[in-house]
């Protein structure tokens, strides 16, 4: 198979920027934790977009799995064993398992009903984290733990001590997750998901078991979402119940819509814009959310396909 540079131009640009980020972040007034946050939130938005953009199903409760990943890693490191990798594994496993069990109750619904049921389940987790004070720390969040350095036989990665080591660790996880998503989307299974997005009735009458396929897509999407949640907790060495809250789910949807739901990298761009705007605006005004809201409204009105949708169109014209 030959590598088509033109077709993969966007991916090449994205990877070049991400890989070289530590070399130029200081010069543009940013800092390593901010780029790390962009990558983590980008992974979250891209995970949601697997379901939203490529299966055509809107979830308003993905924060539940983000939060499960986050609490999974935090609780494991705090109570069970001080290991970044073990925490990550537990977080992802818990998120995936919850998604697999809750999924069958959700996938029979469509449209606004699907969205409402996903919110409802998300809120259940929020209240558990909020109320179960002596384990989760309740409203104050889960503190007194931090990510651990990673010792592999041949090398030690100073995840805790060096922000760049942690950035590249996050980027490696991001690469694995997005690589897997890209592979799945290019497979016959991925095409079946796109078929469901495009026309559910036609898909059903091609003999596709639509609900089952949506369930699989849901589990894949939520699993990567809990990876993102776990990384987010590791980044902050902290997690609080707002990770579960439905407005957090809304933020992920906003990132997807702003960046462009129909493009693979769109949600990453949406996340970058959101995170950077938030970082900048919140230091200027406490009302930063209204400005992000304005940007969002403008995007929906004038670029319904998101930033990347606009760039794409320009490029093809």
């Amino acid at each position, binding site marked *: 198979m030959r590598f088509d540079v033109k077709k993969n131009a966007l991916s090449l640009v994205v990877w070049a920027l991400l890989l070289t980020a530590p070399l130029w972040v200081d010069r543009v007034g940013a800092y390593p934790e901010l780029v790390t946050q962009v990558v983590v939130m980008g992974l979250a938005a891209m995970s949601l977009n697997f379901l939203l953009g490529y299966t055509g199903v809107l979830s308003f409760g993905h924060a539940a799995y983000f939060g499960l990943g986050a609490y999974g890693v935090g609780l494991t490191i705090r109570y069970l064993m001080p290991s970044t990798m073990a925490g990550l594994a537990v977080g992802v496993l818990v998120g995936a398992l919850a998604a697999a069990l809750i999924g069958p109750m959700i996938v029979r619904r469509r449209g606004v009903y699907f969205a409402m049921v996903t919110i409802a389940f998300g809120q259940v987790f929020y209240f558990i984290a909020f109320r179960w004070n002596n384990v989760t720390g309740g409203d104050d969040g889960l503190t007194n733990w931090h990510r651990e350095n990673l010792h592999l036989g041949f090398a030690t990665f100073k995840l805790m001590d060096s922000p760049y080591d942690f950035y590249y660790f996050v980027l490696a996880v991001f690469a694995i997750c997005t690589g897997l998503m890209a*592979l*799945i989307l290019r*497979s*016959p*299974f991925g*095409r*079946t998901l*796109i*078929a469901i997005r*495009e*026309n559910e*009735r*036609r*898909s*059903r*009458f*091609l*003999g*596709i*078991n*639509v609900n089952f*396929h949506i369930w*699989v897509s849901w589990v894949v999407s939520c699993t990567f979402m809990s990876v993102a949640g776990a990384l987010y907790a590791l980044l902050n060495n902290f997690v609080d119940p707002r990770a579960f809250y439905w407005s957090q789910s809304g933020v992920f949807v906003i990132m997807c819509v702003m960046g462009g739901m129909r493009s693979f990298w769109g949600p990453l761009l949406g996340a970058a814009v959101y995170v950077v705007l938030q970082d900048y605006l919140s230091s200027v005004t406490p009302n930063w959310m209204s400005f992000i809201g304005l940007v969002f409204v403008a995007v929906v009105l004038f670029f319904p396909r998101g930033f990347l949708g606009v760039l794409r169109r320009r490029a093809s014209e």
Partner: protein
Amino acid sequence: MSFLKVESVSKHFGSLVAVDGVSMNVQKGECRAVIGPNGAGKTTFFNLITGMLGLTSGRVVLDGQDMAGIDPSHRVKLGMARTFQITEIFPELTVRENVRIPVEVAAGLHLSPRMPAHLKASVNDRIEQLLEEGGLTRIAHRYAGELSHGDQRACEIMMALALNPRLLLLDEPTAGMGDDETHAVARLIKRIHRESHMTIVLIEHDMRVVFNLADRITVLAEGKPLAEGTPAEITANERVQAAYLGGAA
């Protein structure tokens, strides 16, 4: 024994009786047309056969197997493929992708997270073959939503054929088309029927198409069976004439 056996099926929507005790026996390899004035219940009748709607009473049997309790997507796997009155395709995908999806489903790949190397060539060959048969090769790279009505219909029919069905159900394949397109689609159906001896049931308004294609005709009126017979018998049937003329008067 008939290949498709519909035994006095009925469908009630509340107090409205949309289909009332209709039976139909279609032989293997037959092309059957279902006709009737507007509101005769033809599409509802189709939806009962494909399982899109549940039966109020009656039975649908495909090749000896009772379809009761089998959902639509499973009926497709058992060999029932259909097209819709309003074309159902994937508008934002290219024609080739539209055909690729059912070909992969038929190859059992729809849950496969990667394309097995040994099937790649045969899947691609099958796609090109279907595109060729449907006269779609030259427009295969275009988005299906951009095509003319007739080409979209040809695309939909080839998608149904990609599933290797044993029974092809076509709901008004020439609805809303001009003469040229109607002619092209009718020719396509005729060729499919002649070359593959596929069992076909179609609803059709255009009588030229019906008389050109059908081996036998079932006439419905107000949800009830009105007549059944060869095209010549139906033309001569006084009750059919009365129903159509009465509807027009």
